[in-house]
């Protein structure tokens, strides 16, 4: 079995689209949540989101290429290019033939769907752009990454709602670990902030009207976000041989399904995924220093996730530092696990725990150490990144210090 390391990180996020801007906003708990811009909000009762601002696609793509790229594919390609550059990786023809590209995504090309359906239903347009299908299909992002970088090995999308990014990284990890592929581009992408999607989320009655306050008693729900994070995963041997920078080592991956409620987290199911990831990583619960939580800022998640951490970690939960990045990043569904994996890898790299932003008041049902509001410099040997999706699909990764 190969040892697998993270050598490249690329992000497009509400708090900036460079690795350093992303990390400094996370550490300073500077939230990317704000008033929704660029789409009509008159139909909404919730008018905030964590949007990717200052993203000019024409800086990255010519007009002919852009005609094929929904926003979620633009994000993925820009993040993938950044990850490859960050890894100082030259993709040779031989490597590209074998390399994998695996991208998590929950909702496909929602901007293309929304614009297209508006034209049909409202404007009664007799025709749509000929490339709308290749833009909106949920594999469009990963296909565009493959075309952009010339990756010709195993390439596909993983769709498991809010766990998509984590499932994708876990799958890529297993393929590099077993030697099926020498290198993988993996991560998650989402661009779901359209009128149609936001109205659908409003119907679930879980959106906050002000901001996202994970694990805080004063929480008021989740805030939608968007973005992408992509990574270069390769064997430790390969990375060392070429003198690549190593952010963290991927140690284990655990998955489970609740087979229970369609929306509510099941603490036993979530805990089984955590335990399975720890077993796979051969890491004892007491040797985990930091958990980057799913932490959506809904009462159901935060209380259920706290219970799950207690089940999985037992007595060592008392010494565990847990933070959620969603007060800063919002919840970007299929990209969330990937952006949070970036946060976790960077936490190991910088030996700093990013805080839970917007934390106001302790909740008696959430009684762990949530690293409230202020980052913490503390030794991190092993860390965990968790995602728990609607539909009861859980995915957990365990990382170690490089």
């Amino acid at each position, binding site marked *: 079995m190969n040892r697998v390391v993270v050598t490249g990180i690329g992000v497009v996020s509400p708090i900036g689209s460079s690795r350093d801007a992303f990390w400094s906003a996370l550490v300073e708990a500077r939230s990317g949540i704000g008033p929704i811009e660029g789409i009509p909000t008159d139909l909404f*009762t919730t008018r905030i989101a964590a949007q990717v601002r200052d993203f000019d696609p024409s800086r990255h793509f010519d007009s002919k290429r852009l005609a094929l790229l929904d926003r979620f594919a633009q994000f993925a390609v820009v993040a993938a290019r950044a990850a490859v550059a960050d890894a100082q990786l030259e993709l040779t023809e031989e490597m590209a033939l074998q390399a994998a590209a695996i991208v998590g995504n929950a909702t496909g090309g929602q901007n293309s769907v929304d614009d297209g359906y508006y034209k049909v239903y409202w404007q009664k347009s007799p025709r749509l752009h000929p490339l709308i299908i290749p833009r909106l299909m949920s594999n469009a992002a990963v296909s565009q990454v493959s075309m952009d970088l010339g990756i010709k090995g195993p390439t596909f999308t993983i769709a498991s709602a809010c766990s998509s990014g984590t499932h994708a990284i876990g799958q890529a990890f297993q393929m590099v670990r077993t030697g099926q592929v020498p290198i993988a581009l993996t991560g998650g992408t989402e661009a779901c902030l359209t009128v149609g999607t936001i109205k659908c989320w409003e*119907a679930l*009655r*879980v959106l906050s009207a002000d901001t996202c306050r994970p694990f805080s008693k004063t*929480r*008021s*729900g989740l805030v939608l976000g968007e973005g992408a994070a992509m990574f270069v995963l390769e064997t430790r041997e390969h990375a060392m041989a070429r003198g690549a920078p190593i952010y963290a080592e991927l140690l284990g991956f655990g998955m489970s399904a609740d087979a229970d409620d369609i*929306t509510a987290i099941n603490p036993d199911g979530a805990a089984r995924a955590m335990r399975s990831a720890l077993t796979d990583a051969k890491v004892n619960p007491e040797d985990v220093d930091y958990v980057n939580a799913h932490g959506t800022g*809904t*009462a159901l998640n935060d209380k259920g996730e706290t219970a799950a951490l207690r089940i999985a970690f037992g007595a060592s939960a008392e010494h565990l530092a847990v933070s959620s990045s969603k007060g800063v990043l919002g919840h970007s569904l299929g990209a969330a696990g990937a952006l949070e994996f970036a946060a976790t890898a960077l936490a190991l790299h910088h030996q700093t725990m990013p805080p839970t932003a917007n934390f106001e008041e302790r909740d008696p049902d959430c009684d762990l150490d949530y690293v409230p509001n202020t980052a913490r410099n503390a030794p991190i040997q092993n860390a965990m990144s968790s995602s728990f999706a609607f539909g009861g699909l859980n995915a957990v990764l365990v990382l170690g210090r490089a």
Partner: protein
Amino acid sequence: MEVTDDVRSIIAQSLKIPVERLTPDTRLDELGAESLDVIEIVFGLEEKFDISIPFKADEGTRVTISGEEMEFSTVSDVANIVQRLLAAKAKTKASG
């Protein structure tokens, strides 16, 4: 009473229980209503009466209507909220 009857039947239908089980003091959580059941009830009421109930899952059993916090626990709480919103709607129509 008509509004209360409609409210009772929407709740009963949604929870698949006989309407006779619902007294004004019956609490939705006693009936085993989970969060998805509650938002389906809210949706059913909104569709039936053409109103918007500002219910949020994270605000527990409170609903804030024109700055006033109202309880959303029992059958009569729900009926009160619906009546309040219907009165506000009628007023808007009359003045508009």
